[in-house]
């Protein structure tokens, strides 16, 4: 069954754009607040979106983040053009990161990115092609939000 999309908006995230890092996640958060969604839902999405955005900035060339508000959930798709992830299973393990020392020094890439997105969403999918890019799809339910 295809869920009815009540609201859709797209954002562009540019690779290596540390200067604007986190701004898309902040914009999305402000939209979700205006729509009056549950604070716990907004918090989980904000954490996931921020991680996804920073992943793009650190590793990809460019990405499109698509926000979709459904009657009972919020769905996010982040599709990037970039190097891709050779071993998804490895990247999904807690604590694994290829962040450089410089990125770590700036507080990024603690190796929590992808598992953190999965932890903060109710559905999570990742697909990646080396040399082409990575697509993340995750969803947070808004009907009965588990405590985040």
């Amino acid at each position, binding site marked *: 069954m295809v869920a009815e999309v009540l609201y859709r908006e797209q954002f562009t995230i540019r690779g290596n754009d540390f200067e604007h890092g*986190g701004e898309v996640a902040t914009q999305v958060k402000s939209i979700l607040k205006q729509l009056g969604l549950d604070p716990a839902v907004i918090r989980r999405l904000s954490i996931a979106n921020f991680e996804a955005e920073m992943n793009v900035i650190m590793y990809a060339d460019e990405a499109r983040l698509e926000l979709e508000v459904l009657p009972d959930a919020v769905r996010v798709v982040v599709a990037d053009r970039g190097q891709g992830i050779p071993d998804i299973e490895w990247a999904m393990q807690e604590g694994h990161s290829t962040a450089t020392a410089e990125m770590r020094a700036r507080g990024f890439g603690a190796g929590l990115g992808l598992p953190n997105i999965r932890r903060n969403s109710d559905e999570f999918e990742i697909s990646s092609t080396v040399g082409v890019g990575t697509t993340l799809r995750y969803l947070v339910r808004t009907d009965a939000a588990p405590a985040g």
Partner: protein
Amino acid sequence: MIERSHAVVTDPDKCIGCVSCSQVCPTRAIRVREELARVDDELCIDCGACIDACRWDAMKAKTSSPADLKRFKHTVAVPSLTLYAQFDKGVQPGQVLRALRHVGFDSTCDISWMCEMLTGATDAYLSECDGPWPKISVTCPAVVRLIQIRYPDLIPHLVPLETPRELAAKLRRRRLAAELGLDPSEIGIFFITPCTAIVDSIAAPVGLEASNLDGAFSIAELYGPLLKAIKRDPGADSAESISAKGLRWAMAGGEISAMRNSNAMTVRSLRDVVWVFDRIESGTFAGVDFIEAYICSGGCVGGTLTIAGRFVAQRNIRQLARAIGDSGKVKEEKVRSMLREHFFDIESEIHARPVRPLARDLRRAIALKRERDALRQRLPGKDCGACGAPNCDTLAEDVVRGEAAIEDCVFVRLESLEKESTNRHGGDHE
């Protein structure tokens, strides 16, 4: 719905309806309608930016008046540490305390030693508590209000320890009641405040049922009388309790400067606070233990209701602290035992006060958001404020909430007048 109060009032006789205040308000709480600036209780965090911006002296803090002192048998002045830093080089805290007695208070109560106690208590709390991290200081009431309104998710990050001013007032009232044989309600304890946020924290306290303070006078209004009193009587009251570690709390960075835990950050000015809080909400900074945050640049010395200005005041605090020396006035075991007795704990839960969404129903909220975005496209994006709302985004939102009309925008009005006249003109020729 809890009624919100705030500490800023507009004087209708002085307000000319310009938009200086609405343009600087960080939470967009001010609308200028019918030549008068109105502050929205729900949105105001009492930062005082509007008072600073008003050139007509029309925005005022709701401070106490001398008549309020007459209601009590004994009155106590609790000066903000910032007060010590307002005067010329060489004026000592003891002289300021004596001057406070000359201008009408029966006694005074320094809070620098309590600040030092709280430094120890915060350290102990951080070493014993569980997350979420980072913990955020509750010292600045405008920061606490900002969190209640815009960052309700961060409430569990607040350090649940009461502020030095409240704790010092509580202890002093208890002691004076016993010493003077008075009923606690016969003692009036007044804070000498550098900012409006503290005025409101007394009238509408957060984290406690009723404030231990009975009101507040602004540093700015007492400055003149105090200066005169110091000149007339340069003598000093005892300043033995004054702690250098505590004094530094007046400046941004001061609260963490004496802490053992060095995994702490200072964030000052609303812009930076918002930047950091947005990121804490997204889960960054979880590796930081403690954040002291101030709405005013520079911390309390930068408060709206001060005279000296933060740069001079910072120098003065540093000089005073250096002269006193860093040997602590407080014993660590004492602090730990008081912490175990819950002396420092806030009394009641801090509640969220989220700003109302466009609508309660999701579909309705989305419809209104679309309407708002469409209206926004019709507006010029000049953010001139002439409509009474601080910027075009806010006017669009006010219109869909039914609180303003799109024609409030002068550009929209001009456009429709031009259209009308073209139409009429065209008609004449036919």
